[in-house]
């Protein structure tokens, strides 16, 4: 059996390899002139979707992103990796996971995919909520933290990475899936595919057109850098060590 359509979510975030700086006024992360890239877990989601297609288990892969005009770069990367078409929900404000889930829900209702594949979390907020909330809103089964995905007997057989080890589940279709690190190693975007991607259709939808409530419910009070690591000190003898532990650090 083959999934007729897979919807993949891709988020544009500060590049994983970039050193994050907090704005001096503590209002947020400094993003001026900072390299932005596709969230690494979203890359894994795109890779998995494209592999499903290559194995004949999916017919069409649609990549979706929510964000300002620059998010077109993220869609293009997904298309260059093998997605068939893109949906760019244009939105200039940062959305919380609940709002993101609602936007996805609206698009799912339009596109009727048989699976929504997302990264398990974004590396900027580390929320790890969108997939779960979306499944709740859609009342679909969810398979999160996937390290393996198979399509078997009209169902999705998934292996999840959990605290105790690995858990295998059978999920009925349609379902929401979120991807973990060991699911696959994403491919590079090759030049021929980047060129082909330019001819793939991308639909732009202003977020207001979806009629979704994207109101924020959270207020960020402050953002701080982690305290700088203090240097250690050297001691000359065991007696001195004991003295410091007892009288300075107060731990014994």
């Amino acid at each position, binding site marked *: 059996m083959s999934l007729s359509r897979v919807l993949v979510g891709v988020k544009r975030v500060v*590049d*994983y390899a970039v050193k994050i700086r907090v704005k001096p006024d503590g209002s947020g992360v400094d993003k001026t*002139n900072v*390299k932005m*890239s*596709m969230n690494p877990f979203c890359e894994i989601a795109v890779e998995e979707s494209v592999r499903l297609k290559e194995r004949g288990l999916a017919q069409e892969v649609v990549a979706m992103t929510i964000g300002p005009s620059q998010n077109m770069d993220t869609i293009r990367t997904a298309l260059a990796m093998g997605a068939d078409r893109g949906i760019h929900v244009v939105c200039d404000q940062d959305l919380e996971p609940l709002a993101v889930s609602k936007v996805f829900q609206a698009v799912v209702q339009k596109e009727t995919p048989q699976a929504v594949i997302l990264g398990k979390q974004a590396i900027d907020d580390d929320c790890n909520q969108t997939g779960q909330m979306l499944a709740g809103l859609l009342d679909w089964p969810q398979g999160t933290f996937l390290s393996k995905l198979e399509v078997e007997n009209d169902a999705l057989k998934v292996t999840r990475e959990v605290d105790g080890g690995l858990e295998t589940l059978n999920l009925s279709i349609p379902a929401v899936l979120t991807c973990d690190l060991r699911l696959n190693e994403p491919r590079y975007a090759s*030049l021929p595919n980047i060129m082909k991607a330019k001819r793939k259709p991308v639909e732009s939808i202003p977020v207001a057109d979806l009629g979704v409530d994207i109101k924020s419910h959270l207020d960020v009070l402050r953002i701080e850098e982690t305290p700088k690591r203090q240097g250690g000190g050297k001691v000359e003898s065991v007696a001195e060590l004991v003295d410091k532990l007892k009288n300075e650090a107060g731990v014994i």
Partner: protein
Amino acid sequence: MLTGLLRRGSSAMTVFGKRLSGAAASAMKPVYSEVTGDDVDFFRSKLQPGAIVQGTEDLASYNKDWMNQYFGKSKLALRPKTTEEVSQLLRYCNEKRIPVVPQGGNTGLVGGSVPVKDEVIVSMSIMNKILDFDEVSGTITCEAGCVLETLDDYLADKGYRMPLDLGAKGSCQIGGNVATNAGGSRFVRYGSLRNSILGMEFVLADGTIVDTLTSLKKDNTGYDLKQLMIGSEGTLGIITKLTISTPRRLPAVNAALLGLESFEDVTKLLVEAKTSLGEVLSAFEFMDLEAVELGLKHLHGVRDPFESRYKCYVLIETVGSNPTHDGEKLEGFLEKSFEAGTLVDGVIAQDNTQMDSFWALREGLPEALLKEGTQGTLKYDVSLPMKDFYELVTDTRERLSQLPAATVGWGHIGDGNLHLNIAITEKGASELVKAQMDPFLYEWVRSRRGSISAEHGLGLMKAEKIYYTKPKSAVDIMKLIKHALDPNGILNPHKVLPRS
């Protein structure tokens, strides 16, 4: 005319019609003293505690080079903390005729930074302070022992960067970089260190401190001594401080790894890149198939981004101020070249991690070579005219075809600089391979009017090879200068200049 004036094998020397006196001429073959307990006491009295290193085990890393090819027998390493200390110890060594080897990060590839016998090692490692930085001009003043990567990280915070980059950046020191006039992978963008060093403080063999530290961009007052020191490989003095002009660190960095079918295509691509990418081109590195296969075989975490293998690979990097503009320029250039058939495959990095993976492959090649060459490695670093560039690799490969040796080529092709490397895989084959390569390689390069050392320097490995690239008239002047600045020959003896 000058060659006629010089008589080989005589104890006197005539250069520019001036005869060097017998004493001076015999200083050409210096007599050195061994280090005594009194000497060590003197050093101990002048240097900080912990600045003296003795004992075979502790000296092991000082005595051997990165390639495990050159092993010294020094019994003493000194780690001065200030220019004054460097001056005092050199003055003393000069008086006592104790030979010294100045040492930075010890990452050199021609055996120039380790002793040949038991010369005293003068390590600059703890002279590693950043002294000053001007936020407007981007001029940094620092001590010679600063590690290149440390300087670059410091500058990154300020929006600037070092004007050079090399694989050894985590260990090499700026003093060593300057003493060897290091090139590296961004030479094609930022040019030679000779243009970036604004000022220098150095100490002569007799302890004289020469302070020409300045941050002026233009200063035409007299002979530019720092240019003499740059590339002198520790034979004319010890560099203690530097003032460096640093470029802005621009935010838009893009990289692509490309597959090509022939070396001709690589040269075509280079010309096209310089035209289409122009001012944003920041690196153009070449690797042949054999090099890439070695890298994929031995390097951890490095994988092949392509489905097929290609004869030639090129790593292109662009750096500019506008990401959209640069991205379009790069994509446009690559598409055009792809459609023209100049390149047959390519991947463009979609994030910094992918970009780092391209560089991990390119910069990991020396390590991969070491791992492959279990019975030895030979490294050659040459400058050649573009049309002859890869022919040297194919000729070498053919010449060594019957021997257990793998020949691989990579290099800064944007600068005409080839790194020809040979990994020897069977015990006992090392001497046979060396015999096939020397003088073959040097003669080959000379016949094409290339340089037998593009950026690595002469060190010990090529100390007798200079005549392949420089005429005797030039070498004679070098010897004159060496004699003038270091009459007792205590600075890095046996290196750089030939005996005859």
